[in-house]
């Protein structure tokens, strides 16, 4: 396309210079001059090396229009081909905000009526020979009313050389300078949001002041080969305005369009079309982020909520220390495969949901109460198994002396342990991982998948390494009867995890909900006990069948009643401690900032352990608390326990898909919020608070 455009320019100028009949000075239609073209400058004299603005003034007869840089469904933009003396440079055309014109048959075009001044910045060379300069350009346009007529003119301007440059045509140039779109203010990125769906792009205008403008419109600037349909405007319930732009054809990875956001008397330029990954940054940025993903995955192993499973796994390695090397490595592989399976499954689910248009965020499973209930049930069943209430082949049957375990079952066990470890790991957004995932979620399906594979690789690496180098297990005690005790103790660790899960449910849904879930868990325990006691390998087939049926009836009926009815009816309530904290809302932040107060926002959730850790050890510590009070910084808490959509949106604005997130809005620079790391230290927070403190308050 670039080639063809260049060719066209060349062809146009050639034909204009030589013999083209289209390049006439005047353009008469039924005896009328349709367009008058003139070349003007905002200076009366040019100074060497000093840029100034030239303008192509097109005056159309009433009813006729010329086109904007994106003409819409039909027409072509006006072109200016400069014929400047050597050493001169011409910038691109700066297009004033056009009118949107509707033609019969749902045809939309963008153009100018009556008069338009197309501005171009011209830069003379540092030395100009002679007392005056001759500037010329071939201008070509299409002018249409009901019919279209091409026109063109060679426009020229002679200017004396003088220093310094003296202004000219100030009124006209000022009028059209005013009509140029402004670039979006610094903080403007947060005021809008692009969302790519299979056949359309959605542009959400979050900024209330813009969204309130009833005439707010979006003029797209698609770049070939992107083809878009007419933007449709709709109002969301929360007051934001959404433009839906059908995408008829686009390069892969198109994430946003360039264009103008046009309100009553001002317009903002939204920059250029953005693709997910331009080749250069992709290889570089992606590799770095994949590395972050790998490191993040590795760190997941050290997170509090995975700890019990790690112990479980290390215990597993001890168990395998007596096996053959090949078998140990096989188990390591199976375990890693489990990790990969979960992450890839999760990635596919994300990709699926993302394309279905849902708001997907990291740890989103933990904001789904039924997921937490299911997790509780799984954790309890594992714990009971470790206690020896019942025996199945998972996860440590070998320790009970069942030596007839087949290798295949062993690998299956390791595989599921890998899955299990990972299920527990996901809500802990380790440092790095947040950034990496924030990046990944705005990406194409392929990159999301890659990102998750990197995390899986990071998490699985230590296990694979240990199983490949079992010699390192030498430092681990030999197996023996103590293992049974260790196994039982592990059961208690799992019960502690269960306590945490129940607390999550209690915080989100209230005490009743937690009790009803516990009731279901009790029934489940009885089921496990029945199964373990009466459905032993020694029992007859008939007895085993009856027991199994009984267990199923018990679990299903209690599940239906406790979870399906009672739990379902429970109200959503979050009871994070709010003492000293104000509930977060974007408006409240703006209000406080407007009053000159710095604001600190803690994005947290009842189920987020990293958040709890930061709150207990740093944010609620005496030193930090008194610093907040001393500097008069307003503390807000954004509760994401139930995936509040407003909080989700704000998280997204910071490119995050999960909590924790800590943001400090200094009153001195409200548009430059500071994002703190995910793992806080007192020194770090105190430093930041001091920097955000009003300068007067810093004196003792």
């Amino acid at each position, binding site marked *: 396309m670039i080639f063809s455009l260049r060719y066209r320019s060349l062809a*146009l100028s050639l034909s204009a210079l030589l013999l083209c009949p289209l390049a006439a000075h005047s353009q008469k239609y039924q005896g009328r001059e349709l367009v008058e073209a003139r070349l003007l400058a905002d200076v009366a004299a040019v100074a060497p090396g000093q840029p100034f603005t030239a303008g192509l003034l097109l005056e159309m007869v009433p009813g006729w229009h010329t086109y904007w840089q994106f003409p819409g469904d039909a027409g072509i933009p006006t072109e200016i081909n400069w014929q400047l003396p050597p050493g001169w440079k011409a910038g691109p055309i700066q297009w004033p905000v056009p009118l949107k014109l509707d033609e*019969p048959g749902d045809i939309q075009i963008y153009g100018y009526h009556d008069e338009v001044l197309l501005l171009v910045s011209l830069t003379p060379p540092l030395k100009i020979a002679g007392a005056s300069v001759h500037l010329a350009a071939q201008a070509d346009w299409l002018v249409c009313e009901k019919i279209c007529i*091409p026109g063109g003119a060679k426009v020229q301007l002679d200017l004396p050389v003088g220093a310094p440059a003296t202004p000219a045509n100030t009124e006209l140039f000022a009028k059209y300078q005013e009509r140029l779109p402004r670039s979006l203010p610094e903080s403007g990125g947060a005021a809008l949001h692009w969302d790519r769906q299979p056949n359309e792009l959605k542009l959400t205008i979050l900024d209330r002041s813009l969204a309130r403008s009833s005439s707010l419109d979006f003029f797209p600037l698609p770049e070939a*080969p992107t083809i878009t349909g007419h933007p449709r405007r709709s109002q969301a319930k929360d007051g934001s305005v959404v433009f839906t732009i059908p995408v008829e054809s686009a390069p892969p990875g198109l994430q946003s369009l360039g264009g103008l956001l046009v309100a009553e008397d001002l317009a903002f330029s939204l920059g250029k079309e953005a693709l997910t990954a331009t080749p250069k940054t992709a290889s570089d940025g992606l590799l770095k982020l994949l590395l972050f993903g790998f490191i993040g995955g590795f760190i997941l192993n050290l997170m509090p909520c995975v700890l019990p499973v790690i112990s479980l796994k290390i215990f597993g390695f001890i168990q395998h220390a007596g096996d053959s090397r090949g078998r140990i490595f096989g188990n390591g592989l199976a375990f890693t495969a489990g990790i990969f399976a979960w992450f890839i499954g999760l990635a596919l689910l994300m990709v699926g949901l993302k394309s279905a248009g849902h708001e997907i965020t990291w740890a989103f499973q933990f904001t789904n109460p039924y997921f937490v209930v299911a997790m509780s049930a799984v954790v309890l069943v594992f714990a009971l198994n470790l206690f020896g209430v019942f025996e199945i082949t998972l996860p440590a049957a070998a320790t009970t002396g069942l030596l007839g375990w087949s290798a295949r079952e062993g690998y299956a066990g390791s595989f599921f342990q890998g899955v299990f470890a990972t299920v527990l790991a996901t809500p802990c957004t380790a440092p790095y991982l947040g950034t990496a995932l924030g990046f990944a979620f705005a990406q194409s399906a392929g990159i999301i998948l890659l990102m998750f594979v990197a995390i899986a690789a990071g998490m699985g690496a230590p296990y694979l390494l240990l199983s490949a180098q079992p010699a390192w297990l030498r430092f681990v005690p030999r197996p023996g009867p103590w293992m049974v005790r260790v196994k039982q103790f592990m059961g208690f660790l799992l019960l502690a995890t269960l306590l945490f899960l129940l607390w999550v449910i209690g915080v989100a849904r209230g005490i009743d909900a937690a009790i009803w879930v516990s009731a279901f868990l009790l029934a489940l325990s009885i089921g496990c006990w029945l199964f373990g006691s009466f459905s032993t390998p020694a029992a007859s087939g008939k007895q085993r069948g009856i027991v199994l049926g009984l267990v199923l009836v018990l679990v299903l009926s209690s599940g239906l009643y406790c979870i399906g009815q009672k739990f379902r009816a429970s109200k959503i309530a979050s009871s994070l401690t709010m003492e000293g904290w104000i509930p977060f809302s974007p408006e409240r932040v703006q209000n406080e900032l407007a009053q000159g107060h710095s604001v600190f926002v803690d994005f947290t959730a009842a189920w987020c352990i990293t958040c709890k850790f930061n709150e207990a050890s740093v944010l609620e510590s005496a030193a930090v608390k008194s610093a907040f009070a001393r500097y008069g910084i307003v503390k807000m808490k954004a509760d994401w326990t139930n995936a509040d959509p407003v909080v989700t949106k704000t998280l997204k604005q910071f490119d995050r898909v999960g909590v924790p997130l800590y943001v400090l809005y200094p009153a001195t620079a409200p548009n430059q919020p500071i994002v703190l790391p995910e793992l806080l230290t007192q020194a770090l927070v105190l430093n930041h608070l001091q920097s955000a403190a009003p300068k007067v308050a810093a004196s003792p």
Partner: protein
Amino acid sequence: MKTKLLLLTLTTLCTGALGAAEAPKVGAPAPNFSLPAADGKTHSLGDFKGKYVVLEWFNPGCPFVQKHYKSDNMQTLQKEFTAKGVAWLTIDSSAPGTQGNLTAEEAKKQMSELKMGSTALLLDPDGKVGHEYHATNTPHMFVVDPAGKLIYEGAIDSNASYDPADIKGSTNYVKAALEESMAGKPVANAETKAYGCSIKYAH
């Protein structure tokens, strides 16, 4: 006349409301239609099943159309492909009283004056077929394969200008789509932005 206006308004409203969802997509079946031709016969898209069909939106007054007719570019293309068994339907959707609206008589004259090589010049003065295809420009090109599937939609070539001098050196997308498809290859540029004058539909 009143009913016709009402009907048109309704059509416009419907196409407007349903937007892009209604537009035939490349890869999807091309909607069937029947239109009277300059020679008085009625042609349906369905009549040409088993053949490639090119649809070309036409307005003899439009400088972009003139670019391709005065240079003989369009006629050459029409003759080249009709000789290969392609059906070439030129469609005029200009409403009565607007530029390019033709009576059957005038259409016949245009065909011989311009030495058109089309299979037929079809008249669509109420814009029904134009709306159905979401045709916006003259020229606006569509290519339908023998199975009745739309395989190309958009501009005639890669150079959005009204200067006949630009034809040499531009890629003709219609020619490329036909040749690629006939060779059993996928169409590389299956959707481009059509350029030209707006089609002069009725209000």
